[in-house]
């Protein structure tokens, strides 16, 4: 194989996802000029904020060698509990938000304990939590959405920092935090070690239980945060929200180049993955393509991304 082809292949395997993203954006910008306006870009970012926050956590979990199917249900549970404390005349904004985060953290911690200490399979544990948390949300609300929230509750989801919506700020902050932790701290290095070879990490003196517990707890908290942002934006919380969010998060992570078997991956890749899905949805919306077709396209992108990733590795 000529060296130039080999170099191109190596470049593509590392940056392919970003190239694909730029290409996609370019195509859509040409087909539909209103696509590349600042207001639409902000729109896209806002649309992916909620799932993006969750995807950051999912990245950590998958790199650590696990999986978390319960994120969507945790979003619902934390949202209904928090909003139930946010009726007009009730507590300050801070309390519901704090409670929502704690609910998310608590669910994540339970996941983490069962997986790390009891050594149960992540798929099964988080599947159980997914079902149970959803059930708890339904029980808590008797199946009815929580509405009639105090106006101040809208600040989180509807507020702005200058021109930029608060959800986007929060999302970007979480992304930066995630990049910092994963790539610049000892903890992050240990996450890669546990995901790459847990036994070897244990022999090397790493407290693998603590690392495993942490990534699930963090993801639970992030799911709680996502629940806050979401319920604050739509000013209500139905116990049915968040369904399918786990798959969206996993899709973003996988498209972004993280391997489901653990040990490799980046937050930047996940964000690129989330953006590709977000851009695709937004672009197709502008072209008036039905959301059912959008789902088909999303599925195709996932498969294409994995195929390209597999090909680039050989």
């Amino acid at each position, binding site marked *: 194989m000529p060296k130039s082809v080999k170099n191109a292949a190596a470049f593509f395997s590392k940056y392919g996802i970003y190239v694909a993203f730029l290409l996609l954006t370019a195509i859509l910008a040409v087909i539909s000029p209103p696509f590349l306006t600042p207001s639409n870009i902000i729109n896209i970012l806002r649309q992916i904020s909620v799932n993006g926050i969750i995807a950051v956590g999912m990245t950590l979990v998958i790199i650590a060698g696990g999986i978390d199917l319960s994120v969507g249900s945790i979003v619902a549970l934390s949202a209904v509990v928090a909003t139930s404390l946010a009726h007009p005349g009730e507590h300050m904004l801070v309390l519901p938000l704090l409670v929502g985060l704690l609910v998310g953290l608590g669910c994540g911690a339970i996941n983490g304990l069962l997986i790390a200490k009891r050594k149960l399979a992540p798929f099964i544990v988080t599947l159980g939590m997914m079902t149970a948390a959803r059930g708890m949300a339904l029980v808590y609300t008797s199946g009815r959405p929580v509405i009639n929230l105090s106006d101040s509750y809208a600040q989180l989801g509807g507020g702005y920092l200058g021109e930029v919506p608060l959800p986007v700020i929060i999302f970007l902050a979480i992304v930066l935090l995630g990049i910092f932790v994963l790539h610049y*701290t000892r903890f992050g290095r240990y996450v890669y070690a546990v995901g790459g*070879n847990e036994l070897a990490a*244990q022999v090397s003196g*790493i407290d693998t239980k603590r690392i495993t517990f942490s990534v699930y707890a963090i993801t639970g908290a992030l799911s709680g945060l996502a629940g806050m942002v979401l319920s604050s934006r739509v000013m209500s919380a139905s116990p049915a929200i968040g369904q399918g969010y786990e798959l969206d998060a996993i899709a973003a992570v996988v498209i972004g180049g993280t391997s489901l078997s653990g*040990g490799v991956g980046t937050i930047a890749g996940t964000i690129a993955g989330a953006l590709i899905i977000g851009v695709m949805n937004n672009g197709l919306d502008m072209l008036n393509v039905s959301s059912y077709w959008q789902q088909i396209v999303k599925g195709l992108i996932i498969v294409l991304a994995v195929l390209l990733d597999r090909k680039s590795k050989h």
Partner: protein
Amino acid sequence: MSSETKPADFVLRMENISKSFPGIVALDSVRLDVAKGEVHVLMGENGAGKSTLMKILSGIYQKDRGAIYLNGKAVEIKSTKEALRLGISMIHQELNPVKAMSVSENIFLGKEPTHGFLGVVNRKKEREMTQALFLDFGISVDPDAVMEDLSVAEMQMVEIARAVSYDSRVIIMDEPTSALADAEVSKLFEIIRRLVAAGIAVIYISHKMDEIFQIADTITVLRDGQFIESRAAKMFDQDTLVKLMVGRSVGELFPEVRSQKGPVTLEVERLTLGGVFHDVSFKARKGEVLGFAGLMGAGRSEIMETIFGLRKADAGTISVNGKAAQIRSPQDAIAHRLAFITDDRQSTGLNMKVSVKDNITLVALKTFTSFTQVLRPEQENRAVDEEIGVLQIKSRHRDQIVNTLSGGNQQKVVLAKWLLSEPEIIILDEPTRGIDIGAKAEVYKIVARLAEQGRTILFISSELQEVMGMCDRIIVIHRGSISGEFERAEFDREKIVNAAMDNGDYSARRN
């Protein structure tokens, strides 16, 4: 071998075989002549081309140039299926049976004997045919046993039977004894002798000198993808072989360990783990290389795992530098300045998905972290480069992913990882397993240097030559108990082997 011999005198002749991969010439006009019913040993360092040559022969790769003759007839081996059909089969180093199925099911996988026209598998016939095969070659494994329950040695015997069941005339064995104990190796050799008596040629790849001279009829040496020499085994001696393989004199394989023995650094008293080992007591000193010999499965690794906090003992105490030590986890062990280089670098020693650098800094990572938990990359890189230099790890760059390194270099990465934590007591479990002669010599030099620096080395090995060459003292373990202890002056090959197999009076001292 006179040049007048015609291809038909050999069951296999490979002529002028060349094979290249992008950027590397793996084989350059290599030849191999194997006679009928002989054990032909193929030797060479890692990267010499032995595996590539055999993969071409067994149909996994396609040669770029050259010719292959089977019983005088030119053949083209385009796939593994065709190789099998032509009578060539290969038993790989990493065995991959279908674990959930039985022995006879594995042997006849793909060619099950069937009843009638619906193709129902004839289990009874399968079992009988397996029994017949086993009888011919003296294999005593239950045909109905599930593969998963078998030992490595037994799995290997099943693989051999499988090869024979394909009517193979040439059986290639790649490092068959790397996971076998001495007694099992003898059994294997017996089976090989029977194969050979039945007219089957065995091509045997190995790095183990003692075994090679025991079993070989002919030895062919490859180096850097080229054919170097081929002679009858009795016309070779170890030094010549090593020189041919490495291309230079390695000097004495085992360096002289000139270290001052200091006070006792590690004392283990009556360590017991139910069903695995009991009443293990020994002392190890500063500057000493203490060997642990014994059969595989004797419990040596388990003893070390317990000392290192990976297992919890039922009874017994461990003292480090005179003080009682509570070691409940690898972290505790590391805090007491212990290090553990395990016997399987791929599964418990390295993270194969990340770089040399990420592997090397793993144990000592705390020292590269600031108070704010942020890592210091320049410090890391400097320390890693230093270790790479000191241990002479051959990698293109510290960011190279370790799964692309050779076995010997991978082992050095594991060593580097532990050395960065500046341990006082280093446990080495089969440190030269699966690495070639040149790399072995380098590892021995490193161990000698570590001892001279005043560290305590616990050296587990199943290669007797190695234990006797490197250690100041040898403790022999048999079925979980100490069955013998020998000072260097008392080293006696027979006595040590007897102690390992617990054959009556032999030991100089019992604990």
